[in-house]
């Protein structure tokens, strides 16, 4: 709303600056004021029409009251001085443009070189004559007058009425009207292109409908981007008889379209509803304006409501392109609701939005169309006629035009789905509806679970042939994209019924073009994108069960699925037609829709697989495990959990323990399905180890490659409380150690499990996994907190040790079980989490942000998906994760993750957060069990790391979306998993043989080493394998211990080959000598003063010394600093 007046004054300035081009810059107000003078010819007299030379001082003086009142007059009478431009320049009054002599339509030699006809003239030959006669009328129509324009595009629609003289009989036939219209616009364009008035003169297709070119005029100067005048040519009123354009009438002859000399005998001509509709649209421009303005009078809420609706549509990418739900359509819908008294003029903008969404959510216009006709005329076509001809029906007040003619049923269903979802959000008190509905963009990539591109739309020509769509092609003027699209989409919708909630397509869009260029072809819409939104339960089902073999529908099923359909016997004894898709792993099952799409398009539309670029699981390659390429580790995770369940049962039933086990809780990420690379059952090969038979264990050998990393799976084992427990922290530790010893012994005796006890845990080798049991006593945290004051009072205080223990034995098990539950509800939660963590780690930041924090961030996406639906594919989940990181306002908002729906008082958290902001961690995540402390982000990430993370996230998101949107180039989505290294000061290159997780790296290494293990889950009697031994982590630990105040160390723990070092700039400032800060520094004289500086050369050598055998080379990038 607010931008319209600016556009107005701006454009009027442009009018003037061109008339008196010598004047240079003029203030907008003055320009408008003088526009006003011109606008009121009676009052201002002829003198005002000629711009006088003004001195600079005069030019910038404030407007007088007289000028101001004229300005007002201009606004009231003419709505804008822009209108004046039209009237004075090309209007009937001036008659500057000469009439041209009548010529044949095909004879276009009169057009100068700089202008091309904005119409695809196929077939070229057509009867009829054209001459140019200046327009009879120019009128501003559309949203500009209604005041419902919204940014970023301010369009002023002007209807140019072509005089009756240029038309002949039968111009309704065979695109004759359309071609005259195009030639007429070309003629006008030719005149305007000579004017210096306009910054640009271009053609465009109205709503990308290539039958309807329009002329775009933009003022010169910096307003060029702001406002666009769109010229629509329309016929003189009463030129055509409406009855000729009823939906069932034919106006394109097959013989002409097929370029046959004589029409076939006896063949009936098919109806051409879209063609008819395109002509009718032009005849009702003015009456629509009147209709809408009568609806808008005394209805201030309509303007606001429409602005909101338009923003809503824009954010969902619904309002542009062929068959869009345009802003104009939204206005008509509001007017309809007003007519039906579902909206009253008292309503506010918000209420208008709400009522409209409510209506959209509950009404399916593809089944029950609506009409704006007030008094039904018996001669007019009825709704059923429209339904026969169009997929979506919304008839205008004249009863002739279908406003939704180009919209596919699928697009309307998408609108409907969005409206439903939005109503849910508006009714949800927990969500900030405004932010979510109107401020959040929903690009297709982030809104749909899978997307795929049709790389070459020209393949749709073949599809039209295969599906025999000649009539539709004729109707659409040869536009094979528009003709085939509804059929393709409904084909897919049928094939994916049950699996997909929504099958949507992007709207074909053709950009504007300069007037001296040939008009864009149909194939210039670029790749078409399709989006699938899944029903999580059924999306991955292997079976497509059809009707029983002897039923008549069986044939239909067989023809639909082709040779994939086969007869199968089912458990209930029935024999049915069925399609079974091949997929072994969860990863492959997720891609069954891809198989379906490719199969159906090949079978029914002749579109080869190579033309389809399916973006379902491109990113998942980075979490693939092991050497095989078929799976992404979900199966491995399940088998870990099974083994864990078995172990916990065994622990429960262990005989001979002095105290019973009260609870067994897993805390390892694999037990909540979020471990990036789940453990694989392993059995050691003895020859690669140093065997210590006396202790029944293996040790790594220095000369062999480092053994494969075996992660211990941490399990907390709570023991019952009893008076037997000592009440002293030292003694509790000893008792726990005794328990570890005893557990090991009993498990070995009763279940033949190989165990290795230690002071703080017992490692158990079971089914090829190593579990790390930790005994916990619930009072221990309390005892650790005890402090006796000097007065002898017992106080409880959090200590570092107690906090750590509480985190490990209380909060982490709870989080693990909550997230385990979330995984049961949303099967792709785990994989999304793993992708997210893989990305964090690949960006070398895994040590700077806790794993649990990333888990919670991803959980947020599933628990609070608005305005989206919960992700059903890891890829879309990952994109939203990046978006969340990049766009969430961490400074001013807490991220509230309502795990298990256990939170009610969200506002209380927000209030407390605001009150205590400065003392809280930079990244604040609240959960039901942790509302005030944000325990998983307490220490990490720091503000700088968070800043970097956000920057990396937004860059990665941009890069990956760019790749996913561009099907024509090869996708290298791994790009965002390769960290930028130029930013670091020192790179420590590691020796791959000593990196135990080398195989997990983003780009799978060409050369792999024997790491002394084989996949095996059955062995029982073995020497205990090497567990939790990762030289790189040992090295990093030593580096951080020694140099943490001089540098930061970054590493990708999943097989990174390089450790990146960043000097801390502050510690490189020379400092005065201090005993406590001499670590790694040396004393030197600077300007005859003794100062301490880091001994960089020695430190660089220390890097090599400490990592003897692991470090390949240390690369100091001294271009950033000097030694």
């Amino acid at each position, binding site marked *: 709303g607010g931008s319209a007046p600016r556009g107005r004054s701006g454009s009027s300035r442009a009018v003037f600056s061109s008339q008196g081009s010598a004047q240079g810059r003029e203030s907008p107000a003055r320009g408008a004021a003088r526009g006003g003078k011109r606008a009121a010819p009676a009052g201002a007299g002829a003198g005002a029409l000629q711009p006088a030379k003004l001195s600079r001082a005069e030019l910038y003086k404030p407007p007088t009251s007289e000028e101001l009142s004229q300005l007002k007059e201009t606004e009231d009478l003419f709505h804008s001085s822009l209108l004046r431009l039209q009237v004075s320049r090309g209007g009937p009054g001036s008659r500057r443009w000469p009439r041209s002599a009548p010529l044949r339509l095909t004879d276009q030699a009169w057009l100068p070189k700089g202008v091309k006809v904005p119409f695809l003239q196929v077939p070229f030959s057509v009867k009829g004559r054209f001459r140019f006669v200046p327009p009879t009328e120019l009128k501003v129509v559309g949203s500009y007058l209604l005041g419902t324009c919204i940014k970023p595009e301010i369009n002023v629609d002007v209807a140019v009425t072509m005089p009756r003289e240029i038309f002949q009989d039968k111009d309704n036939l065979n695109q004759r009207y359309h071609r005259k219209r195009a030639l007429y616009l070309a003629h006008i364009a030719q005149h305007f292109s000579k004017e210096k008035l306009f910054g640009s003169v271009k053609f465009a297709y109205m709503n990308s409908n290539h039958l309807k070119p329009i002329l775009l005029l933009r003022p010169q100067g910096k307003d060029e981007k702001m406002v666009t005048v769109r010229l629509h040519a329309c016929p003189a009123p009463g030129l055509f008889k409406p009855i000729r354009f009823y939906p069932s009438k034919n106006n394109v002859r097959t013989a002409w379209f097929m370029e046959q000399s004589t029409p076939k005998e006896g063949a009936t001509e098919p109806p051409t509803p879209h063609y008819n509709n395109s002509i009718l649209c032009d005849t009702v421009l003015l009456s629509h304006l009147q209709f809408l303005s009568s609806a808008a009078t005394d209805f201030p809420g309509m303007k606001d409501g429409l602005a909101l609706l338009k923003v809503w549509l824009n954010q969902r990418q619904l309002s542009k392109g062929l068959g869009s739900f345009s802003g104009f359509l939204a206005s008509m819908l509001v007017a309809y609701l007003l007519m039906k008294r579902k909206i009253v003029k008292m309503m506010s903008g918000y209420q208008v939005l709400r009522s409209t969404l409510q209506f959209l959510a509950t009404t399916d216009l593809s089944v029950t169309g609506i009409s704006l006709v007030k008094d039904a005329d018996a001669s007019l076509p009825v709704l059923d006629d429209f339904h026969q001809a169009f997929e979506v029906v919304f008839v205008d007040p004249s009863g002739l035009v279908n406003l939704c003619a180009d919209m596919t049923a699928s697009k309307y269903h998408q609108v409907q789905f969005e409206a439903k979802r939005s109503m849910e959000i508006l009714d949800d008190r927990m969500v900030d509806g405004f932010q979510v509905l109107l401020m959040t963009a929903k690009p297709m990539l982030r809104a749909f679970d899978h997307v795929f591109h049709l790389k070459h739309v020209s393949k749709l020509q073949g599809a039209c042939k295969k599906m025999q769509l000649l009539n539709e092609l004729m109707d659409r003027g040869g536009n094979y994209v528009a003709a085939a699209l509804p059929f393709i989409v409904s084909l897919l919708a049928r094939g994916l019924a049950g699996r997909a909630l929504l099958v949507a397509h992007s709207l074909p869009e053709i950009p504007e073009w300069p007037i001296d260029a040939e008009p864009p072809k149909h194939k210039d819409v670029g790749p078409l994108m399709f989006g699938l939104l899944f029903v999580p339960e059924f999306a991955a089902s292997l079976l497509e069960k059809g009707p029983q073999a002897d039923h008549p529908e069986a044939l239909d099923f067989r023809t639909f699925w082709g040779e994939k359909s086969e007869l199968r016997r089912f458990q209930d004894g029935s024999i049915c037609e069925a399609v079974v898709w091949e997929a072994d792993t969860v990863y492959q099952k997720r891609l069954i829709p891809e198989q379906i799409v490719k199969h159906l398009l090949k079978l029914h539309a002749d579109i080869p697989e190579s033309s389809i670029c399916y973006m379902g699981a491109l990113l998942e390659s980075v979490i693939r495990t092991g050497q095989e390429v078929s799976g992404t580790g979900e199966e491995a995770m399940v088998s870990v959990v099974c083994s864990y369940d078995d172990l916990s049962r065994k622990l429960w039933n262990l005989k001979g323990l002095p105290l019973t086990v009260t609870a067994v809780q897993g805390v390892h990420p694999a037990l909540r399905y979020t471990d990036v690379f789940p453990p694989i059952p392993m059995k050691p090969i003895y020859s690669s180890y140093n065997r210590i038979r006396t202790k029944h264990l293996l040790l790594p050998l220095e000369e062999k490659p480092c053994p494969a990393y075996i992660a211990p799976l941490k399990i907390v084992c709570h023991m019952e409380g009893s008076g037997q427990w000592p009440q002293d922290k030292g003694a509790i530790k000893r008792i726990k150690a005794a328990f570890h010893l005893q557990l090991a012994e009993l498990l070995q005796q009763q279940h033949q499990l190989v165990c290795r006890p230690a002071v703080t845990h017992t490692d158990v080798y079971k089914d090829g996994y190593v579990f790390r049991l930790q005994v916990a006593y619930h009072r221990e945290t309390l005892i650790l907190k005890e402090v006796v004051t000097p007065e002898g009072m017992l106080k409880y205080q959090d200590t570092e040790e107690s906090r750590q223990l509480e985190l490990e034995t209380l909060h982490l098990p709870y989080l693990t079980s909550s997230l385990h539950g979330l995984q049961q509800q949303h099967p792709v939660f785990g994989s999304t989490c793993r992708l997210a963590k893989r990305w964090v780690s690949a960006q070398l930041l895994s040590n700077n942000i806790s794993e649990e924090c990333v888990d919670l961030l991803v959980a947020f996406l599933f628990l609070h998906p608005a305005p989206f639906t919960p992700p059903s594919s890891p890829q879309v989940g990952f994109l939203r994760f990046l978006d969340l990181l990049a766009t969430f306002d961490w400074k001013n908002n807490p991220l509230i993750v309502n795990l298990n729906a256990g939170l009610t008082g969200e506002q209380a958290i927000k209030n407390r957060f605001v009150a205590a902001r400065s003392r809280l961690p930079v990244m604040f995540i609240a959960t039901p069990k942790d509302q005030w402390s944000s325990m998983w982000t307490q220490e990490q990430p720091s503000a700088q790391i968070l800043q970097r993370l956000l920057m990396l996230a937004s860059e990665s998101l941009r890069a990956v979306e760019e790749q996913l949107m561009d099907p024509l180039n090869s996708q290298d989505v791994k790009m965002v998993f390769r960290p930028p290294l130029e930013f670091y000061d020192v790179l420590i290159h590691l020796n791959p043989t000593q990196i135990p997780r080398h195989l997990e790296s983003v780009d799978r290494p060409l050369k792999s080493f024997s790491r002394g293990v084989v996949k095996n889950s059955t062995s029982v009697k073995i020497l205990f394998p090497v567990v939790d031994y990762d030289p790189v982590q040992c090295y990093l630990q030593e580096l951080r211990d020694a140099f943490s105040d001089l540098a930061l160390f970054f590493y990708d723990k999943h097989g990174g080959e390089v450790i990146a070092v960043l000097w801390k700039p502050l510690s490189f400032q020379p400092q005065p000598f201090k005993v406590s800060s001499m670590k790694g520094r040396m004393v030197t004289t600077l300007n005859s003063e003794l100062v301490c500086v880091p001994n960089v050369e020695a430190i660089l050598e220390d890097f090599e010394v400490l990592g*003897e055998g692991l470090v390949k080379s240390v690369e100091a990038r001294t271009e950033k600093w000097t030694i």
Partner: protein
Amino acid sequence: MAAAGERVAGAAPAGYTALAVKFGARQRSPHYLLVKEHQVREGADTAHPPRRTLFVLNVPPYCSPDALSGLFARCGRVQSVDICDKPGTGEKKEKLTSKFFNRKTVTGFQVAYVVFRKRAGVQAAKALSQEGPLLISTESHPVKTGISKWIASYAASVVDREELKAEVDAYMQDYDKKIAEEEAKAAKEEGVPDEEGWVKVTRKGRKPGLPRTEAANLRVLEREKQKKARKELLNFYAWQHRETKRERECPTLLLPLPLSLVSHTVAQRVRPFSFSGGYVQLPGNSWLGGSVNSLDSSLGGPLPPPVLARAAGIFCRRVCKS
């Protein structure tokens, strides 16, 4: 990043001597140890006797106590080497009693106290600055770093079950004995007054005492507060008495309100009160106790000025009359 333009290798602040030290012969750039004679004020530090002790700053992470004593062996026999995180903790250091528990390893750059048998050792060590860089890892005494060190420490992390069991058992026996002794002592003292006549009350006796915890203390304080509130005299002063009495006799106030106020919209807001003609009955104590502004809140919206003034008038009159 600062760069030292002209650098004097081995510069040292007052009192210190810089000793260049390298890991091995292969390395080119040395670290500089800063050494000086250890000084204590009152001779309290018995573990590090003055004059015989060398205080060493900036000991590199790979330099273990053994390596350090090897380094200074040429200056005289070394009695002991203490390595710690920061200076001054030497005295409080307890002896490590357990092989498995409370093990803390010092990492990174450290400080060290090298105690020589004789005083001459300290001086000899200071004189080392004239020689070339000292080597920490030599062929005769190699220092393990990197892979070999980590494998060794992995091997060391494996505990011997029997040994651990024995140690735990021994500790627990001691602990049980200690507890038993304490209990016996407490039982003996139970009810017996000490020299000054005080009797110690524990949780165990016939009359268990309160546990001395913060929570218990808070509970007691809270209870006291409540008790105090209960006991407080309410109508002690004459004016208090009078006011209570009046409140009892005249519980509500009739307040004239203009009919315009009781219009459609306001009526909704003041619904909790009953209407009688143009009068709104307000609960008297709700505003008499407070200021006139409290009327405001009970009505739910701002009052037009005349009503406010009138209400204030009544208030004044009543007060004057009494």
